[in-house]
């Protein structure tokens, strides 16, 4: 049985276009669109909103760090405020006392936090669940106390903190300081998000997730769980530490009170709302953490905490798996409709 000549011609003409369209998934289009919007935003809005969006990206990056550890590797952490704080203070001290340029503080903070995270991950290997939570909570509580510690005051500025100057754009670039910082943060964000996505899709990523899902089976299959778990701790701390450094530069001030246990709680809330184990979800988490307290405050200043709690509950009811979970659900529904639609169509 031969195919009629007209249909063959049609098929060959359609083939290249279909091939490209097949590779351009809705996901790619969404990411591309988001990047274009992100590039245009500071030019369309005020300095203040640009500043807020920069903070959103910073929190999103911090939440991504937590996500790598808790979402992808199943190790519960209440201590990420400590890594954020270490990153922030490293940047502040280097800029204030060593006159280091702001962009070099990022790798310094990252590497220091990686080391601290890795070292913390070693004893953490023995702890599970709530016991690990306590250990990380100890870290989070220790951080402000250590920062206020009297003998360290010449370095950390003690309770008074350290103030730093916002970097100016390089000469010749027609942007304001806020806009420049926004683009700088965006660039760092895109690079680090891409690295994280790569990591998760790779063999290492699968090993990390295997450890989360079934540690015994993973070990039985030959995965070096100890190594992967501590490395993940280190990488997670690195991400949150870089976010902390960016945060210090954006806010231009670090003090022990900025890095308390409550920050860890905020990061956790952002993680869940955005969607555990979802990389783009981390940004949604950042948006939530920054803007929803403001919304709660505008409803009732005296009961701002209560309104925030109510909003949290409502969001959890509607999307128990976070924004990413909801997106997945909607995508599944949409693709099932599409499939039905295509099947119904005659070729």
């Amino acid at each position, binding site marked *: 049985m031969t195919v009629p000549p007209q249909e063959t011609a049609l098929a060959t003409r359609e083939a290249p276009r279909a091939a490209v369209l097949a590779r351009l998934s809705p996901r790619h289009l969404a990411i591309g669109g988001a990047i274009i919007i992100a590039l245009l935003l500071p030019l369309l809005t005020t300095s203040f909103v640009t500043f807020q969006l920069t903070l959103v990206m910073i929190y999103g990056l911090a939440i991504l760090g937590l996500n790598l550890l808790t979402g992808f590797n199943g190790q519960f952490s209440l201590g990420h405020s400590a890594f954020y704080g270490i990153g922030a203070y490293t940047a502040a001290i280097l800029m204030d006392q060593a006159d280091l340029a702001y962009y070099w503080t990022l790798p310094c903070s990252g590497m220091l936090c990686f080391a601290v995270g890795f070292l913390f991950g070693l004893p953490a290997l023995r702890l599970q669940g709530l*016991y690990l939570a306590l250990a990380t909570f*100890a870290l989070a509580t220790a951080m402000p106390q250590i920062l*206020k510690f*009297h003998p360290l005051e010449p370095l950390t500025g003690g309770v008074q903190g350290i103030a730093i100057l916002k970097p100016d754009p390089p000469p010749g670039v027609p942007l304001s300081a806020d806009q420049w910082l926004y683009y700088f943060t965006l660039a760092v964000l895109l690079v680090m998000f891409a690295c994280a996505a790569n990591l998760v899709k790779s063999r290492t990523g699968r090993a990390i997730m295997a450890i989360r899902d079934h540690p015994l089976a993973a070990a039985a299959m030959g995965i070096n769980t100890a190594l992967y778990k501590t490395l993940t701790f280190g990488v997670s701390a690195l991400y949150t530490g870089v976010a902390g450094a960016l945060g210090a530069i954006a806010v231009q001030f670090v003090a022990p009170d900025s890095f308390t246990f409550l920050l860890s709680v905020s990061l956790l809330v952002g993680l*869940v709302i955005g969607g555990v184990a979802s990389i783009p979800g981390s940004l949604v988490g950042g948006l939530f953490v920054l803007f929803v307290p403001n919304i709660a405050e505008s409803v009732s200043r005296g009961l701002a905490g209560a309104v925030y*709690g109510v909003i949290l*509950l409502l969001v959890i009811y509607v999307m*128990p*798996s976070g924004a990413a979970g909801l997106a997945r659900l909607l995508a599944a529904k949409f693709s099932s409709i599409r499939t039905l639609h295509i099947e119904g169509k005659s070729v």
Partner: protein
Amino acid sequence: MELLLQQLMAGLATGAIYAAMALAVVMIYQAIDHLNFAQGEMAMFSTFLAWQMIQWGQPYWVAFVAAVVLSFLGGVAIERVLFKPIHNAPILSQLVAFIALYGILNSSAGEIWDFTIKTFPTPFGSAPLFGQNLISTHQAGMIGVTLAMLGLLYLFFRGSRLGLAMRAAAANPDSARLVGIRVGWMLALGWGMSAAVGAVAGMLIAPVVFLEPNMMLGVLLYGFAGAVLGGLSSPGGAVAGGFAVGVIENLAGTFIPYVGRELKLTIALVLIVAVLMVRPSGVFGRAVVSRV
């Protein structure tokens, strides 16, 4: 030597606070398998309810009993209304729900009752115990009541059918359903009991620390540390852990030179984590052995 004895006793007295809270924490952990962040706020809110009743002229014991009963009912209601819909949600989402509950209770208490400290009466009086200046009668009473609650709960869980049913529902909900236990209501019961224990703890603690909306955050965290130290699967261990945390913190603050004053919380927590390294399920906890 006298200083050591005094700090030890003071540590036990403060530890009694943590122990009472740790008991409530472990209670709910045994029922629902995770930590309720809002535990402290629930205890605080219950204590405020009791305080309000006393302000309205009720005698202490009426207010006490009423607060415990209301807390029990409140705990059951919170579970049935707020947490039932997210039963099957991932653990982290439920954790966020606890955080939300914390915010609601803390903020509401601040709006209703203000942030100035209030005195809360104690049925034990505040005289020095046996005339010695080591510990007051109230603090001794607190230790006594905590141990009594521990004893009652132990009897309940080991000796009664309902207690057995609750343990079954927590350990293996599916199997429990198959034998006819109403798991949902067991959970609600667990919440109610934990809220009631929390209310008693709050009403014991308030005379010492003074009643105000933020009184429980530190206590909850120390209580949590004590519960983990003692072992989350063992109520007795949790109580022991609570006392231990109180003593460790006091002794660290007093005797470790130079560093102790400013870093005593850190030191206490580091010590606890060190203990956990050696015994990852807590000192008295049972290691969970799971079949592969």
